[in-house]
């Protein structure tokens, strides 16, 4: 086998390993929220994982800075919320979770995800 082919194989394997590590092995940083939190919507959600207290009302303010159509809606299915996020405007969603657990939220096309952890 020629050298160029060996190099392509090595880089291919490294590329696959990197893709796996980069996208699928990231560690989620949990942000503890007591009353309200601003989530910036730009190429995903910042912060991506928030933890909120059980039985208390928490205000989640989504501010979309990303023009992508994909992120123009946010869905919190467990709280039955689907909201349109106008560009550069604050949209507040109030939740009062009564059960502990992890609840995912996503964009309208289910491509970008975030998580609400209820303690």
């Amino acid at each position, binding site marked *: 086998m020629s050298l160029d082919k060996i190099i392509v194989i090595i880089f*291919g394997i490294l590329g696959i390993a990197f893709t796996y590590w980069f*996208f699928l092995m990231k560690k989620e940083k949990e942000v503890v929220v007591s009353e309200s939190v601003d989530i910036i919507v730009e190429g995903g*959600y910042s912060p991506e994982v928030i933890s909120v207290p059980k039985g208390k009302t928490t205000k989640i303010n989504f501010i979309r800075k990303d023009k992508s159509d994909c992120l123009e809606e946010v869905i919190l*299915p467990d709280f039955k919320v689907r909201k349109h996020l106008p560009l550069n405007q604050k949209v507040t969603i109030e939740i009062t979770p009564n059960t502990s657990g992890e609840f995912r939220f996503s964009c309208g096309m*289910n*491509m970008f*995800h975030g998580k609400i952890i209820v303690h």
Partner: protein
Amino acid sequence: MSRTLELQIKVASSLFLGGLILWGSFPGLMETAPAILRQFWVQLILATPVQFWAGLEFYQATIPALRHRTANMDTLVALGTTVAYGYSAVVTISPQVVKNIGIEPLPYFDVATIIIGLILLGRYFEAKAKAGTSEAIKKLIGLQAKTAKVLRDGKEIDIPIDQVVIGDVIRVRPGEKIPVDGEILDGESSIDESMVTGESIPVDKTKGDTVVGATINKSGTFTYKATKVGQETMLAQIIKLVQEAQGSKAPIQRIADLISSYFVPIVIMLALVTFGVWYVFGPSPAFLFALLNTVAVLIIACPCAMGLATPTAIMVGTGKGAEHGILIKDAESLETAHKIKTVVFDKTGTLTKGKPEVTDVVGDILQTAASLEKGSEHSLAEAIIRKGEAERVKFEKVTGFKAIPGHGVEGVINRQKVILGNRGFMEKEKVEVNGREIDKLENQGKTVMILAVNKKLAGLIAVADTLKDSAKEGVQALQKKGIEVVMITGDNQRTANAIASKLGIKTVLAEVLPDQKEEEVRKIQAEGKKVAMVGDGINDAPALATADIGIAMGTGTDVAIEAADITLINKDLRSVASAIELSKKTMRTIKLNLFWAFGYNIILIPVAMGILYPSFHILLNPIFASVAMATSSISVVTNSLLLKRFKM
């Protein structure tokens, strides 16, 4: 600039410039093109604005996403087109580099530009189609009146609707929209409520009746007192419920959720595999085969179709229901409803109007019976009292009144002990009754009350409730679908059977006390059947909650909505079958969407990788990959929109 206009300009420019490049570079076509278009440098100049101006949004989405270590469809498009554009730019600027590895220096600017143009075109159509899925909510919001004619300080003034407060007196003239919910104080009219409740026939209303905001006053002029404003009105509640349902997630979506989390990284890995395999094992020029097939894999993968498959159908389905007075609480209810095998109807107030009337009085007992019932709150007592008032009987004084639940009432009138109740009560009190007369009345579907004075039979009063107009058709519509219909009632078996036979219901659960209804529902569920319980939503709340689907004949304002999975605000019993049919149609659409979205990716990604090449020499041109990708999400949304055509 609006998003639509922006997309239109970008699509037109990309396809125009891409078309020129294609003309100057596509074998068989390029010979007819002016020499200038065949110049690689000219193609680079034409392609650059498409790549970095029209295609800027793909980079703008990709870069912040990568910062979050996440990726979406834009990432794949950005990667794919950058690879095609980047290689072409190298070929144009330094053709020698490519020549040195034995490849003829030919650029692929047409691939990059046309892909961007077509994907943006797909996005434009997708945005238009997606707007159609939330039309129902927009329609409901649009129903709201803007102003109200309020009487304040003796003057009639026009004020914006958000300034109307509870207690305001509002005047409504013929043809006008009723601004908020309230109660008529003076006047009468016929009101078209179809836009809110889905009830097709205008309803006559007079003093004391409630009116619903956003409905239309047809004929008379009246004044009414506002009782609910803002978020408390029936329309606001309906909008909230539909919005909540559209924000909820159907269980069937779980698999799509799981796959979409891993989809884009897996496609990137498959693209790398494609490049490696073609480069190492592919025919000459291996590098070009590897490059083009890698671009095709990145472009053809369509995670959006999977993401859109379920929610778009749920949005159209719940919206369609709301337009016809069927409020579905959430996506899960909509999903479960199609599995219903048995529908249990509560009799009083659901199959019947819930306003019983006295039909027969045997013996001269109306005065005594009406006097005794004065202390009772039972709906049958109301019927007897109404009859007494209509006959202008003189109500006598009752002492020692007592209601015995499930049996009847007793008291003392003119120093004589009087009891009024059912057969069981008489047996308990050892009163001999005329069985044949009672049987005859009960066989006609009437509820018979027996009156005894000092333990001796004095007479009978028969009471009957009228069936709702839609009851028979509602039951038949379900039976036609092969769904078992059961009637549940506290009435005795004979009366219940008589009513059930009028409706064609074969299974009757009679003499069931209110707190036993839940247990009866459980018994049917234990047979392995999915059960829907139809009730008024207030008295049957536990049974509604126990059933797989609780259907309330609600007014849309009270607790009924909370207790039920589906609320029929049109009060039409035929809508039970319609709701189940809507669920079936929605589920069929979702399954077809998911089948298409998964099938598309499962079949076409391997084709783009070149799996058909060894046997059939078939490869997928990246431009065709972009056509397929753009149409796949549009087709899913369009398929969901087809649900709108379903006739209810």
